[in-house]
């Protein structure tokens, strides 16, 4: 990986603050993993409908990037956004209930898996048209700059979106206008069944930043600490210099593109998947923590237990929550009269 920023620190001693951070991140990653497993299960049982794109394997990206943000920053994503919603602080309950289409879901059952929103934490949605959220992300950054706040905007998309027009148009304007935006390209190697090299004329996609007078970096997406460090730098550029960054975060999805796509067999081999699983983002952090004396089998089991309970609770909540009223069909099309 030419130019990939990695992080190889192997401290034997870490500060209590760091330890707390690491614990938090480990828990977040584990929560995402177990949540997604449960979501997949619920999908198979017909409890979740539509398209459902799981985040398993990519957990360190969401957790590491969002750890670098402030509460009032903006976040927006595509349709593979359960993990980011959770890492941003949405409750497992509200996300699971949304997958179930329930009234208690974050989007009140109207959005579904691809359209998770929570404006109370500036989580500005999952969006379903590839590349569609990229200009939205720049729009939030524009708004921050316009209003003179020092908020930054972080926008996720897959590496396959780097070949679509909105990527180009938006990054050009972000570079031209120096918007406080962070463009996080999650390069998981595939857009649906198409390997990155079959869709993009160059595969070191962060280099496209040069076309836009923008800093571009490649980051090891399986190491949450590397992700956090690189995002810190991007946040600083955005917040202090109002300069955008293109981060190409290299990761891998263990599962199929969506629930209707097999994990392997068509466009990639089982061996390839297994090889990537050798460097599992949860394991990478867990090992580092074990080395630093911050984790042992007991505490890991404890963690797993807490996460399992949270996911089970979310499932139960979703299951028992009411459906939206049928009258909801016609609300939210337009603003309520006289709102302004």
């Amino acid at each position, binding site marked *: 990986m030419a130019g990939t920023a990695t992080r190889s620190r192997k401290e034997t001693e870490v500060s209590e603050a760091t330890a707390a951070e690491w614990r938090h991140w480990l828990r977040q990653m584990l929560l995402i993993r177990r949540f997604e497993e449960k979501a997949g299960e619920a999908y198979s049982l017909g409890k979740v409908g539509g398209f459902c794109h799981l985040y398993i394997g990519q957990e360190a990206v969401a957790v590491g990037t969002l750890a670098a943000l402030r509460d009032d920053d903006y976040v927006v994503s595509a349709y593979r956004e359960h993990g980011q919603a959770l890492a941003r602080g949405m409750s497992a309950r509200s996300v699971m209930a949304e997958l179930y289409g329930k009234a208690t879901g974050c989007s009140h059952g109207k959005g579904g898996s691809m359209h998770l929103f929570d*404006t109370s934490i500036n989580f500005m949605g999952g969006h379903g*048209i590839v590349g569609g959220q990229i200009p939205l992300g720049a729009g939030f950054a524009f708004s921050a700059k316009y209003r003179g706040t020092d908020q930054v905007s972080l926008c996720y998309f897959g590496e396959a979106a780097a070949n679509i027009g909105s990527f180009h148009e938006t990054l050009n304007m972000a570079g*031209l206008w120096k918007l406080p935006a962070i463009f996080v390209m999650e390069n998981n190697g595939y857009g649906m069944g198409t390997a990155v090299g079959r869709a993009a004329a160059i595969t070191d996609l962060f280099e496209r930043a040069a076309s836009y007078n923008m800093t571009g970096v490649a980051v090891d997406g399986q190491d949450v600490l590397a992700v956090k460090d690189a995002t810190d730098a991007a946040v600083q550029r955005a917040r202090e210099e109002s300069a955008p960054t293109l981060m190409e975060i290299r990761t891998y999805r263990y599962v199929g593109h969506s629930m209707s796509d097999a994990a392997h067999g068509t466009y990639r081999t089982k061996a390839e998947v297994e090889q990537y699983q050798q460097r599992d983002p949860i394991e990478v952090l867990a090992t580092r923590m074990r080395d630093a004396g911050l984790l042992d089998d007991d505490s890991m089991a404890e963690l797993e237990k807490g996460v399992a309970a949270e996911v089970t609770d979310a499932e139960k909540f979703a299951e028992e929550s009411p459906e939206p009223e049928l009258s909801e069909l016609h609300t*939210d099309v337009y603003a309520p009269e006289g709102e302004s």
Partner: protein
Amino acid sequence: MAVLTYRDALNQALREELARDENVFLMGEEVAEYNGAYKVSRGLLEEFGPMRIVDTPIAELGFAGIGVGAAMTGLRPVIEFMTWNFALLAIDQVVNAAAKVRYMSGGQIGCPIVFRGPGGAALQLGAQHSQAFESWYAHIPGLKVIAPATPADAKGLLKSAIRDDNPVVFMEGEMLYNTKGEVPEGEYTIPIGKADRKREGSDVTLVCHSKTLSVALKAADKLAQEDISAEVLDLRTIRPLDTEAIFESVSRTHRCVIVEEGWPFAGVGAQVAYEIQENIFDELDAPVLRVTQADVPMPYNRALEKAAKPDPDTVAATVRKVMYVEAES
């Protein structure tokens, strides 16, 4: 009342709303330093500065989306498309983002944005530059669609559009920019969703909007000489459609001809005709007829272009049809 051009009326509306609410900004190609390709934004850069009057690269999809994003944070962008023809490149952001974000988020996020610019044919601009897309946008739930015909309506409706909490598609007419009309002094708005009777009549209702208002009025003049009294109803807003006003008028005249600039298939007139026959079928003494652009891409040649556009003679002839009278000659 002051007499203003349609262009200046729009300019006033923008200036007043920019002054009134600092969340309002204008973004688009050539809107700032060039004062607008059609000079609608003349002087605004000087008055409000480059943060609020923003020139963009040629990147309709991108800057429309940036506008939608800004609107999702509570700003009130006015996005200028140099013409609506170019907005086809941005239509995904209008239809899939602006129109749906409130619904998809379960009502959490609004999108108070105005997309505006000239639409329809001007003179000899050829097939790619002469298209009227009112019916397309009006097809989409979540959008409002406005197409004013006079300076006064343009000003009052643009102000309402900017204050509206929904995405509004605001279609101007390049051929209208230089037309003049009386505009009320001082602050006023015109409500979205209200048609306006521009001429009273009793024998037939001519439904029109934007540039076809003048076509309808001219046709009404002609018809008056034949003792046919045509009422002219200017829709002003296409979505939501003021069916009440339409039904009220047609229930009196019992005949209706729709005049529009767009193509016929599934055009605005098809919807108007549908509504009429659905709701006041028994009031109709004749089928509802339409006069539209010829069902062809717009030709460049002047005579061909003229033949492609709705004109007063065709409207008058169509009225005679629904009146079951022979043409005077």
